[in-house]
């Protein structure tokens, strides 16, 4: 395998892009997608380390993270739908009922 740093930097790049998506995009669906991207970055880390140690724990962890991502996506999308039904928008900054 390549030196571990390669994978770490790749994962970091995806993580950062995901974070950027979360903080910059107004569309909540894209935000949710960005979160998926972050979790994906985590998986790259885990799998790379798993390979490094020759230990499958990391892969198992990654597996669970995929499951979690799925669950989060399902719930998140469900909530988006409920929100959209009430508010006819998916823009994050139009969530403005709850504030100071």
């Amino acid at each position, binding site marked *: 395998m390549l030196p*571990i740093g390669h994978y*770490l930097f790749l*994962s970091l790049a995806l*993580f950062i892009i*995901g*974070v950027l998506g*979360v903080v910059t995009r107004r569309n*909540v669906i894209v*935000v*949710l997608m960005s*979160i998926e991207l*972050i*979790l994906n*970055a*985590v998986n790259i*880390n*885990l799998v*790379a*380390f798993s390979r*490094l*140690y*020759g*230990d499958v*724990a*990391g892969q*198992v*962890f990654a597996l*669970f*993270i995929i499951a*979690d991502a799925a*669950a*989060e996506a399902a*719930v*998140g999308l*469900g*909530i*988006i739908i*409920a*929100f959209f*039904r*009430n*508010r006819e928008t998916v823009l*994050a900054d139009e*969530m403005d*009922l*709850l*504030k100071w």
Partner: protein
Amino acid sequence: MNIPFINGILSYLQGDGAAILPEMELVLFGLGILLIDFWIEQKDKYWNAGLALAGTIFSGFTVFRLRGAIVARGDLLGFHDSVVVDPFFIFFAALFLAATALVILLSVKYLQIEEEQEGEYYALLLFACVGMMFMASGIDLIVMFLGLETMALSFYVLTGFLRREKRSNEAALKYVLLGAFSSGILAYGFSLIYGLSGSTDVRNIRAAFDPRFGLARAIELSRQSGAIGGQMRQLLVTRYPAALHLEPSLLNQLTVLAAAAFVLVAVGLFFKVAAVPFHQWAPDVYEGAPTPITAYVSVASKTASFALLLRLFVTVFAASQETWMPLVAGIAVASLTWGNLAALTQTNLKRLLAYSSISHVGYILLGLVAGNGTALTGISYYLFAYVFMTAGAFAVIIVLRQKGLIGEELDDLNGLYQRSPAAALLLLIFMLSLAGIPPTAGFMGKYFIFLSLIETHHPVLAVFAVLYIVPALYYYFRIVVHAWLKQPGAAPRPSMTSAQAVALGVAVFVTLAAGLYPEPFTRLAQYAFGQ
């Protein structure tokens, strides 16, 4: 009878199963609720609540039995050492179950008024509780993470449970997006921890991070030839295979990467406990969520996240306590400041309590800063008190919720005393406890925290912390002023159901008992950390 199936289950329950029996019971009850929900009529939906309550009671009983068992036989490890039943778990599981039971009791009437009486609500409450209990019992990063996510997902749904309510939707959406974001950060941190230690087992990670565990020496020994080397190698292969790949000279120092991992994990957890500056979801979610869920989020989610945080901080990161201590102190002070100051001008009760709970987080984190035995006792005592007094405070708000009255604004409390003296009195007691006035549970919690700060020579922090009681009292007493001293408007007399009365009774009993006769509770708090 020698039926293999039954025998299998029995042996499972005596083996690994015992360690997760309370959780399993809750899951079973949750599934039961999902099932019977189809058969019960709209007007009989309270059976769901009854079943859920039975689940918590069962589970609680099991926890109690487990306590007896571990007293006799020591900590119970299960599932290839991924969960542990230790006093820490017993304490927190009991707290979660109590909080869940209180919330169930408080939900029945509320849901009737809101006309949202699906059984899923109670099932999700139980599943959330399962998640929390795994957060407390897990000693494997994966278990912890999944427990956390189970709890969090349940909460996202519960927060948005009032689907017709725009505010509920909005709160849920904010919660889920921010929550998932923070989970991502936490997971990233976990992945780095895994990378640094090659293990997901908390104890192994601790061994890798903490020089006192002598892992480096073990690895060096294992590389020698001879009988000892062989033994050691064998030990490592079974207990900690990844260690064979680790370079002993690199171990046992707080490395830069470990710092990065720490910060990421800490941020994820600080978000969950709503510490400044990761707190901003809390007021919105508290306000938008159905009030029982607000109580649940405020009480249980926070406590569970603290359980997880404590497990990590006092094990994995314990060795580097003095390096992260200033950081936690900064967060604590920021939480105290922000929470207290922002609460001063709130007019929405739930938001006010949200900010106040942020300040409570500050106090608990100060305990972490001190980090000695007293501090740990203090944290558990504080959390214990916090559960009951906060639940009580929300319970009063829930009692206020009537048809045609939201009861969440300060002005809705006006003249509560005339309308319901008992509710006003209870409110007063909870507010005093939240503010930390003796003889209430809240004071005892603060007492231990302050004492620990003095013991660990943090006088400035201590002064800072005590002085914040003053503004805190001011905003808590704004509530009291509205309830006691203002003239009532046209608001109806609140009526209390027996379930609410029981919940309030329990909350107030504990709040007062833990203040007037703290001895058993102190022992309980000390028990949690095996002191």
